[in-house]
Structures are given as C-alpha cells and as structure tokens.
C-alpha cells in the first residue's frame, strides 16, 4: 500500500475506512420464514408485492413532506412514467446482470418498439391495431432486431460488443431521424391512438389511473416471466456463461444461442416499454432515444443491483423519482437557502439559480464510478453477486485488518 495513500485517508481505524468497509460488507441476508416462503414461490411474491406497491403509491402524496409537490394526478402520472423505466431496467438486467453482456445501445430497441406502435396505430400510417396486441407485436419486432444485431456480433469479445451496441444505439435514432418518408423524420409521428379496454373504453389523456394500473400489470407479468427464466435451465446457462464462457461451452452450452436469447429477451422488454410509452404520450420522435437513455437505464441497473430483478426495479424507480421530483425539490430547497453567489475566477456559482437537473448526468456518472469502486453489486444486491464481486477485496481487507492493529 503506497505511503501516500495510507497517509491520505486509509489509516486503519479511520472513520472513512471503517465506513467503506461496512459499505462493502453489505447487509446480512434475511432468512425469516416469510422470506423463505416468498423465495420459493416467486410468482406469488411478485403478484403480492406489486399489488401492495401499486396500492400504496398513490397515497404517498398524503404524507407530510410530499403534500406540497403536486396533485395526486401528477404523482400517479409520474409513477406511470417511472413504470416505463422499471420495464427498461428489468429488461437490461437480463442482458447485463444475468448474462453479463454490456449493451450500450439499449435505447435502440426502445425506439424500435415505440416506432412499431407508431406504424401500427397512428393516422400517419393509416393503421389502427389495438394497443394490447401491439404490445406483443412491438416486443416481437424489437426481439427480432435484437437477434439481427446479436447474430454477427455476440461472437465478439465483451468490450467490442459494448462498442458495437453503442454504435447501434446511435444509428437507429439517426435512421429514424433521416428517413422522412417512413418516419416523418425529425418531427416524429404524432396523434398516436390511445390504449383502450373493452368495457372501460379509450384511456384518453386526462386520467393517469388506467395507465398506471396497466403498466403495473405489465411489469408484474414481465417480472414473473423473468423470474421463471432465471430459475430455469436458461437462467443457469446465463450464469455459467457469465462465470466462465469456455467451461460453459465445454459443458454443452451453446454460448452464442444463450447470449442471443438474453439479447433478444432484453430487447423485447425494451420494445414493450417503447410501445407503452408511445401510446401514453401519443407521440414518438427520434430525440427521445439518445445515448443518455441507454446510459440512464444502465445506471439504474448498476445502482439497483445487477442480477436482482426487484433490486433493479427499485433502483429504476428511485432514480426516476430523483430525476423527476427529487432534483426539482432540491432546486427549490437550495435556491431558498439564500446563499449569495460565489465567484471563482471566470466561473460563478449562483446557488439561488442552480438547476440540479442540468447536473443529473454528472451525478449519475459519479454514482456509477462510485458504485463500481465501492459497491459494484448495487444497492439491493443478490447474495450471489456480492460474493462474486468481493472475494479478492474481502481477502485483502481481512489481511490488512490483521496486519494493522
């Protein structure tokens, strides 16, 4: 350990070091009988969990700190939007968390799903396929593109795959932007048809409730299906490929097919989210699907806990709420403190006018780097992941605890 480092902050016993060690160690796993029961019956736990969450969230606005933030309708609409991100996150979790493939162009499949809905249900395209079948169609189209992209590229090493998916994520919005004839180019396609249910009728624009409930249902179904996959032969294959690709191939796993399936399933979830979002907003435009979207979803997955479906969902929800509500409130709070502007050479820090929303990606970047350094398994890790990522560090730390009293 370099003398400079030990001098600066790594003196053993220093509060900083202790805090870091605690952060790394993580919490102990909970094994009450209830937890074990729900662990064995995944589908039931998803349904119960989602029902509880869906039922409680609309009433959060009644709690004191939140009452001033907006109307209940705003809140529910915000939750519905968050639901889109949750779907994206649990889909990317399959690719990054379960199969260990870094996909940096995830927004491309999101765009494909959204534009598929635009083709299926808009005046621009003269089609009107109902929303619910479009969900499946959009997912299927996105999955197809996932297969098309993956087929030549999943044989590449992990780092190259990242770049290629990054490129793909860049190209797709460019294609949508420049193909005026098919996609109305920069202007996007508007006036998409709203979802509707047989007795209820069209969802319309005013009431966010049906959107909120729909997305909750879609998320619940997606989670159940993904949990089933995780515990199946394919899920084990993903884990094996992530652990040691050569050994996995030597045990009979077709690594290319396994990775392709992860890619396609991740893409289909993203497509699903795209269909939902475009029907809710009634508009698609190429600008909605830039790299910042892919990056944000990645941040959600990493922060939430790669590999843990609930963890990733929670991470997505938290980040979205921070992004949409938390930062705004922080603006008001800090602005209200009345701190006079600070001058540093040519740069002015005016805290009364600070807009944290401008810095959110800086925060995500810092969070990503920080998480990777301190707690790569995420805020809500699966036990397995924590074990995977800390073996060497634990040994080193343990040694150093012994050496320095």
């Amino acid at each position, binding site marked *: 350990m370099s003398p400079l480092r030990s001098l600066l902050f790594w003196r053993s016993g220093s509060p900083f070091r202790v805090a870091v060690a605690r952060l790394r160690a993580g919490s102990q796993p909970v094994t009450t009988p209830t937890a074990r029961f729900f662990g064995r019956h995944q589908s039931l736990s998803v349904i119960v969990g989602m029902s509880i969450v869906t039922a409680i969230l609309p009433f959060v606005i009644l709690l004191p700190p939140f009452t001033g933030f907006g109307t209940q309708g705003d809140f529910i609409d915000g939750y519905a939007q968050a639901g889109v991100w949750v779907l994206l996150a649990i889909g990317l979790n399959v690719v990054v968390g379960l199969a260990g493939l870094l996909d940096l162009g995830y927004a491309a499949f999101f765009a494909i799903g959204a534009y598929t809905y635009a083709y299926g249900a808009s005046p621009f395209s003269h089609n009107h396929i109902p929303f619910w079948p479009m969900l499946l169609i959009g997912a299927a189209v996105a999955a197809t593109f996932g297969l098309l992209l993956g087929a030549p590229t999943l044989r590449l090493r*992990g780092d190259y795959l990242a770049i290629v998916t990054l490129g793909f994520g860049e*190209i797709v919005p460019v294609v949508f932007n420049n193909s005026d004839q098919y996609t109305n180019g920069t202007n996007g396609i508007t006036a998409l048809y709203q979802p509707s249910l047989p007795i209820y009728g069209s969802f319309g624009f005013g009431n966010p409730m049906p959107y909120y409930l729909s997305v909750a249902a879609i998320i619940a179904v997606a989670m159940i299906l993904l949990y089933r996959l995780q515990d199946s032969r394919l899920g084990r294959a993903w884990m094996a490929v992530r652990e040691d690709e050569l050994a996995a191939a030597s045990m009979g796993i077709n690594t290319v097919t396994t990775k392709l399936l992860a890619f396609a399933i991740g893409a289909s979830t993203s497509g699903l989210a795209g269909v939902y979002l475009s029907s809710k907003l009634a508009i698609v435009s190429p600008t909605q699907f830039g790299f910042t979207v892919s990056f944000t979803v990645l941040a959600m997955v990493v922060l939430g806990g790669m590999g843990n479906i609930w963890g990733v969902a929670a991470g997505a929800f938290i980040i979205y709420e921070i992004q949409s509500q938390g930062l705004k409130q922080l603006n008001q709070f800090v602005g209200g403190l009345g701190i006079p502007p600070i001058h540093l050479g040519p740069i002015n820090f005016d805290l009364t006018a600070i807009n944290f929303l401008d810095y959110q*990606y800086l925060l995500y970047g810092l969070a990503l780097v920080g998480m990777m350094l301190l707690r790569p398994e995420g805020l809500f890790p699966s036990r397995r992941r924590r074990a995977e990522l800390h073996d060497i560090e634990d040994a080193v730390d343990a040694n150093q605890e012994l050496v320095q009293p």
Partner: protein
Amino acid sequence: MDAGILIQQGLNGLTIGAMYALIALGYTMVYGIIELINFAHGDVFMVGSFVTLWLLATLGVQGAINNPILLVLLLIVMFAFSMTVMGLVGVLIERFAYRPLRRAPRLAPLITAIGVSFILQNVIQALYSTADFNIPQVIDPQAGVSFTMPTFNVGGFAVTSSEVTASYVHVFIIALAIAMIITLQLFVHRTRLGRAMRSTAIDRDAAQLMGVDINTTIALTFFIGSALAGAAGVGWALNYGHTKFDIGFQAGLKSFTAAVLGGIGNTTGAALGGFLIAFVEVFSSQLGYSRWSEAIVFAILIMVLVFKPTGILGQQLAERA
C-alpha cells in the same frame, strides 16, 4: 472529374485523419496494455479543446496572429499546456477509476469508463454550458497556398480543376501529427520505457517479474495517450475554430473504429486507420451522405469486427487455452 476538388478533399481528409489518428493512438495503446476500451478518451480530446479555449481567453488572444515568431511561441505554449494538462487528467482517471478495478470482472471498468465519460462531459457542461463556443483561430484559416491542378482531356475523360487552397492550418496539423506519430513509434520501439510498455501489453505478469513497474508503465501509457488526445483537441480548435461539449462522443466513436480497423493494439495501425476513416467520412460527405457518415463508419466497424477483428495490421495471436 474535378481534380481540384479531389485534392482539396484529400487535404481535408488528411487533416481530419491527423486528428483521428492521434486520438486512435490513445485508444489503441490503452487497449493494448490493459485490454480496456477507454470510453472517456474521446472526452479527453474534447476537454483538450476547451483547455485551449480557456488558455487563449486567459492570454487575451482574440484572433489570428501575424507575427511568425509570436505565433510559433504561442503554438508551443498551446500544445505544451494542453498536452500536459490532458496527460495528467488521463493519469488521474487511470489512478482513481481504473486501477482499483484491474482485477475485477471485465464489466466493471467498462461501466466506470462510461461513468467517467459522462462526468467529463458534464463538468464541461457545468462550467461552460451546452453552447457552441468560438475559439480564436491563431493561424489564419484563410492563409495558404492556392493553386490549380493541370487540366487535361484523355479520350473523352475530362479532368478539370477548380482552385485548391492548401491552408497553412491544414499543413501544420498534418505535419505536426505525423511528427508526433513518428516520435511515438520511435519511443515505443527504441527506448527502454517503450519496451516496458510493449512487454506489459504482451504479458503483464511476466513483465512484472522482469522488474517492470506496472503501475508506472500503465500511468505513462495513459499520459501519452491522453496528451496526444489533448494535441488533437488543440488541432481541432485551430482547424475549426469552435468547440462544443459533445464533440468527444462522435470523434471518439470514429477514432475507436479507426483503431480497430488498423489493428487494435498496433500503433501504426491506429495511425493508418485514422486516415482511412477520415477519408471515408470526407468522401461520403462529398457524395452527399454527410448525415449518414456515422452510420457508414459504424458499418465499417461491424465489417472489420466480423471479417477480421484483428484489423488490417493486427497480429493473429496464438490462442492457448
């Protein structure tokens, strides 16, 4: 066919290629030594151009400098300053974001690299906003040598020539870049430190056993790579006279493609690839597809990775399981 336009675009291609080559060298060196795609590298280039902006603003330079001695001094200062600062930034990034993760699963440093990229972009955004900034072009972009190519007519195939302007900026950037590339090659192949870098790239543990200080060697690699990107940033400022917080992303993607095309890990290949990609970009613009230049470069990347992942000059390393 217009020979003049051909030559003009050729010069443009060489200039852009010079910058892509410098950036690609950083990618290829870092990948060669720690097998990491440094996503933040493109943004190092971008910060380099902003550093130039800041320097010129602080020095009070408003526009082109006519006094040749003053110009040379200023250029030396610009390049030295930007390259040193960006070199140090690169070393810091390696030290705090990549080194702790050297033994972590491959995914971790990749994610960190993306995080660093965003941090760099957003720091610049915070300090300077998302606007396009003008940088005084200290070498007058208009000044240069104008000429026309000889025209002739061979059996119905007419070769005309419009006027070609070989501006001093272009010539300077091309010459400087080539000089830097040659210096780098000499350094990597003829010096002790260069040998340390090459051996670390081939087999890190063996190099360590031979007494090579891995940490210093890797830090040096990052310093050089980032310094070159900083130089490319200065070149960009000189050539285009403006900069924006997001130029790193595009340039980075194209330069990485160049590095892969030339052969990842191979410095000559990176330089070659930089020029090739620049020519593709310039000529696809000429054909009217400038909106698609990204897509075309990306298609090239895919094709290289599918047909020959080791690139044009890359070695097919023996795979021993």
